[in-house]
């Protein structure tokens, strides 16, 4: 006898599926089941992955879903035909589009009946209408339900017997059998699977607790009563359904009826045509060569040959329309003055350069087109384009308009459980003490995955104190390990968009985002599985910051961004000093330290810099050799002469992904297919076993190629270290141009560019107080938020001043800021808080209180901030009752006695300013401590920076962005920056200090730190602190 599970939930049922899709399919294959159905709650998101694994394990995938009906009951639906799949996609879309459907999708029976063709219906689990009617002994209602559904679905309706082991299940099964006999609607056996095996019950139970917001001690009808919902074998089915063998046999009958819906055997990308009907290969060729003549002036033979080679591959792989679509989008953006630039491996393409999709001259830089597209790989190309963040949506609107809303959708993204969220959510479900969970979650490093928690407890110093709770936390760790890759939250990809040649219902359902966009439930990988192509129209705040600076510069003589000279001495001099806070890609402490040592003199050095500070080159120990060779302090040598043409331009050091591929080809004679496998392992899998396998192949082929074993082994060790994470040269080059140009803006237009950065926060590496501190260091006055001067944005009153804008105030609405601005323009400056309250009715008490707290009324009010806050409730009550007098002076109506009111201290003002704006406008946080610090012989940071190498210093400051990047040795090195009222100092802490006392940096007590150590410069001009002691000052 054969039994097939036709009702099965994966993790895409969100907190209702305890086993990965692969393990469900593997378990079914292990039991030699010829087919398996996937029926997640109200989604088809798991289907592409399900079809992929089913293909690998050789079983037939049956698509379906468990739908929630209007009354909250469940109904199991299976796809019989492709039309049925289209109907299912449409039904899911209808469910999600209704009011409240984003969080609680519901399906009207009328819609189901209207789109019933091609769908098979099983009557549902104990939450189904039929089972509920039987439980309540409403037999007439049960029979009526069956008759209504039979009328619509005819032979596609089955009564679902679920041996779920709940009270009354045996009698319900007998009643269903009786109903089947009376109505002639056949029975089918299912087990409402939520886990691949019995042992996963705790995982399922905890997930349910998380969904219900309760803990394991709380009885709840939504929690599973027993562990019978597992993917059991046929013997168990025979036991469970002993009285109903025909219900078991019917599972195979249904499986035979159902069609596998993926893969779709046609490309779904649209054919591009201009409005006058032009398109296809000749049009692309014409555009490319027209662009080439603009880009290169005169075309030489090599460039022409390269372009023809690329075009040939594009044509052969069928991506002519893809390039035309992207060209069209970029053309639209440029025509509207929307700043954009292609990034990623697309910059390897000269065709993309000539179509103005990228700004990197792939021919001039000698970049390999095959890194982007190749006949051997035949993968879909992936072009990522950055647009100015504040105008990117105009581009997306254009795509909707051009291809039709029924053919365009945003791409989904799934957040999986991270270490911190796993601690909080699983811990709460296990009823572990809140304090313990909070303390643990705050100390778990951000990058820790859910399956690394137990390991982190033994490895990370700041988690050492939790060792004593190890046993108590054992269930938490075990469950976290299991659910590590499970989707937790569904969201919209920041820039991914799918365009289809036919209506998207052919392959996907859609659901609205909070912002009103339609999203497919598929992420990038799933889209590819169903034949759709994703375009990445990314929003890059740096582009908006550039645009903002250009816009604001019109006051002082407009910046011509496109004409920025690429060899500006002052800009390179600034970069050489490492003064690059605010510069795209070059602002991290590691980059600033690198710049101070590297001495960049040209764009090529910036390209190298962007690629150098990546885990790959760092783990490969390539940073120091690169600097030494670049500066001529170390000879450029090659392990083998064959490496010279590959590594010549990077001084014998492996910097770029392309070089790794070329090395494998030159040294080991890798075929394009093998090289591509290496590329895949490097950029996607990063899997130890796969890397070992490819290493063995490399060694074997290198030896055959006549390379000495030791040399081959050393070369492969470079590849292996590099494999972690590195940039391709095209990507580094694309970023480097923007990096240099933003450096130019910082050097020559600091007020404009820093004001523009402040308007785009959060962006880049640093918070608002660091950007302000750096601007001040460059001689720019930071003017506080002022009710009579500030607008929503930060502005630049003169080339040496930045006026902070109201947008920096936490949760302050733009509408109120705009109303303040308009009223000020209309009626003149505000003369008091009362004047403001009267003239701006959009402002509520909290808005005015925030303005007071950040000092925005300091210049118009004699009264202290505390006194104003005290008066606000009364003034607002008077405004509401219409009794607030129209007094335009500082004489306040009905002023309350001030006797008990103490003026706001500096500490209070700073606390408010830092909390609400992120920067002190009345001073610096360290001003409060300076007298004490002086008595304790602390140095200021300005003093420390002026000290020679080797000098001991003790400093205090706000800790900025502590982080632990990977190192070649595997030992931990902590980098952070300290900021006081005199400047900023980068600090490095090695593992010995970190393990004994340095963990404080990563705790809530580490925001204000004291540190002592030795100043050092490591060949650069910029001093750094090598920390040997550190302590919290909070």
């Amino acid at each position, binding site marked *: 006898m054969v039994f097939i599970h036709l009702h099965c939930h994966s993790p895409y049922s969100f907190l209702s599926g305890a086993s990965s899709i692969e393990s469900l399919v593997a378990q079914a294959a292990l039991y030699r089941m010829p087919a398996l159905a996937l029926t997640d709650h109200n989604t088809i998101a798991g289907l592409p992955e399900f079809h992929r694994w089913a293909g690998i394990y050789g079983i037939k995938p049956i698509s379906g879903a468990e739908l929630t009906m209007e009354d909250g009951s469940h109904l199991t639906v299976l796809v019989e035909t492709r039309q049925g799949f289209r109907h299912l996609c449409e039904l899911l879309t209808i469910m999600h589009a209704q009011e409240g459907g984003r969080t609680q999708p519901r399906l009207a029976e009328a819609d189901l009946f209207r789109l019933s063709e091609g769908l098979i219906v099983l009557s549902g689990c104990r939450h189904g209408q039929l089972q509920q009617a039987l439980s309540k002994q409403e037999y007439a209602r049960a029979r009526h339900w069956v008759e209504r559904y039979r009328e619509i679905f005819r032979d596609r309706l089955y009564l679902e017997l679920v041996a779920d*082991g*709940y*009270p*009354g*299940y*045996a*009698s319900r099964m007998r009643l269903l059998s009786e109903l089947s006999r009376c109505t002639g609607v056949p029975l089918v056996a299912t087990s409402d699977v939520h886990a691949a095996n019995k042992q996963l*019950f*705790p995982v399922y*139970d905890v997930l349910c607790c998380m969904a219900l917001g309760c803990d*394991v001690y709380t009885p709840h009808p939504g929690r*599973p*009563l*027993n*562990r*019978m919902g597992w993917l059991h074998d046929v013997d168990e089915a025979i036991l469970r359904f002993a009285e109903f063998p025909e219900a078991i046999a019917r599972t195979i009958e249904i499986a035979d009826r159902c069609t596998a819906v993926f893969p779709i055997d046609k490309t779904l990308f649209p054919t591009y045509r201009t409005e006058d009907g032009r398109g296809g290969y000749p049009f692309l060729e014409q555009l490319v060569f027209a662009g080439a003549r603009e880009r290169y002036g005169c075309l030489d033979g090599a460039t022409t040959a390269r372009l023809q080679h690329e075009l040939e591959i594009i044509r052969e792989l069928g991506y002519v329309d893809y390039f035309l679509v992207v060209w069209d989008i970029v053309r639209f953006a440029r025509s509207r003055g929307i700043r954009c630039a292609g990034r990623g491996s697309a910059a390897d393409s000269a065709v993309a350069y000539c179509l103005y999709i990228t700004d990197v001259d792939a021919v001039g830089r000698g970049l390999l087109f095959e890194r982007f597209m190749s006949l051997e790989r035949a993968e879909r190309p992936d072009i990522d384009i950055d647009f100015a963040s504040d105008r990117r949506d105009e581009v997306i609107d254009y795509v909707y308009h051009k291809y039709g809303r029924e053919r365009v959708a945003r791409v989904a993204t799934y957040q999986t459980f991270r270490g911190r969220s796993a601690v909080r959510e699983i811990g709460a479900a*296990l009823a572990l003490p809140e304090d313990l969970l909070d303390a643990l979650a705050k100390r778990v490093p951000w990058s820790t995955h859910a399956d690394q928690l137990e390991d982190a407890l033994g490895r990370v110093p700041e988690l050492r104190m939790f060792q004593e709770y190890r046993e108590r936390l054992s*269930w938490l760790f075990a469950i976290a390990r299991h659910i590590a890759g499970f989707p937790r939250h569904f969201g919209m990809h920041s820039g991914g968009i799918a365009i289809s040649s036919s209506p998207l219902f052919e392959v996907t359902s859609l659901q609205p985002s909070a912002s009103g966009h339609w999203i497919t439930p598929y992420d990038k990988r799933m889209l590819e599985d169903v034949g759709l192509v994703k375009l990445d129209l990314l929003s890059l705040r740096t582009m908006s910051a550039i645009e903002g600076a250009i816009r604001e510069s019109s006051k002082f003589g407009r910046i011509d961004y496109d004409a920025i000279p690429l060899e500006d001495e002052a800009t390179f001099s600034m970069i050489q000093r490492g003064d690059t806070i605010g510069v795209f890609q070059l602002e991290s402490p590691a980059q600033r330290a690198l710049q101070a040592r590297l001495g960049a003199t040209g764009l090529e050095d910036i390209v190298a810099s962007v690629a150098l500070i990546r885990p790959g080159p760092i783990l490969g120990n390539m940073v120091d050799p690169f600097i030494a060779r670049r500066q001529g302090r170390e000879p450029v040598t090659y392990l083998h002469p064959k490496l010279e043409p590959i590594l010549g331009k990077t001084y014998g050091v492996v910097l770029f992904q392309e070089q790794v591929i070329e090395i494998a080809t030159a040294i080991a004679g890798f075929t394009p297919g093998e090289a591509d496998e290496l590329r895949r392992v490097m950029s996607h899998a990063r899997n130890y076993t796969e890397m070992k396998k490819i290493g063995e192949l490399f060694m074997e082929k290198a030896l055959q190629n006549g390379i000495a074993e030791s040399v081959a082994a050393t070369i492969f060790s470079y590849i292996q270290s590099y494999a972690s994470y590195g940039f391709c040269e095209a990507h580094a080059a694309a970023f480097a141009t923007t990096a240099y140009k933003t450096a130019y803006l910082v050097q020559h237009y600091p007020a404009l560019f820093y004001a523009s950065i402040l308007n785009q926060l959060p962006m880049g590496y640093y918070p608002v107080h660091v950007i302000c501190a750096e601007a001040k260091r460059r001689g720019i006055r930071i003017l506080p938020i002022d009710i009579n001067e500030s607008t929503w944005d930060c502005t630049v009153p003169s080339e040496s001043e930045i006026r902070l804008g109201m947008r920096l105030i936490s949760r302050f609405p733009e509408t109120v800021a705009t109303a303040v601005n308009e009223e000020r323009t209309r009626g003149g400056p505000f003369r008091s808080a009362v004047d403001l309250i009267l003239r701006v009715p959009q402002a509520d008490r909290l808005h005015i209180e925030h303005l007071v707290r950040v000092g925005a009324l300091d210049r118009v009010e004699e009264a202290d901030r505390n006194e104003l806050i005290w008066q606000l409730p009364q003034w607002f009550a008077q405004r509401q009752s219409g009794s607030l007098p129209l007094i335009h002076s500082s004489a306040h109506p009905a002023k309350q006695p001030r006797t008990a009111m103490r003026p706001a201290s500096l500490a209070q003002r700073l606390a408010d300013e830092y909390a609400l704006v992120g920067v002190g406008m009345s001073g610096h946080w360290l001003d409060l401590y300076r007298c004490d610090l002086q008595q304790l012989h602390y140095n200021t940071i300005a003093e420390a920076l002026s000290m020679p190498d080797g000098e001991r210093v003790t400093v205090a400051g706000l800790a900025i962005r502590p982080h632990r990047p990977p190192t070649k040795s595997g030992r931990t090195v902590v980098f952070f920056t300290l900021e006081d009222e005199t400047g900023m100092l980068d600090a490095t802490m090695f593992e010995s200090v970190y393990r004994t006392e340095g963990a404080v940096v990563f705790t809530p007590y580490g925001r204000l730190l004291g540190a002592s150590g030795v100043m050092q410069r490591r060949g650069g001009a910029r001093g750094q602190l090598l920390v040997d002691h550190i302590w919290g000052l909070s």
Partner: protein
Amino acid sequence: MSRIVRRPIAVSRWCDGEPLAFQDQEAVRVIVDVIDRWFEMGCWWLGEGERKMMRVWTEDGGLMDLEEDAGQWFIYKVWD
């Protein structure tokens, strides 16, 4: 009304792996009807497993829930 008693019993007669009669303290009770059967998971985080539950009528007119936990049978609940 019902009372949870969770009192161990000794099964004296069986039918297909289920009790037919059992010794409850001084009394011998004979099951005349099984009204329902179901399964319940215990506190798995404390090491408890799944329990089999039966609601039965006994010959002397008693309505009670029996529970099997790791091979041992109990009267879990008595209904008045």
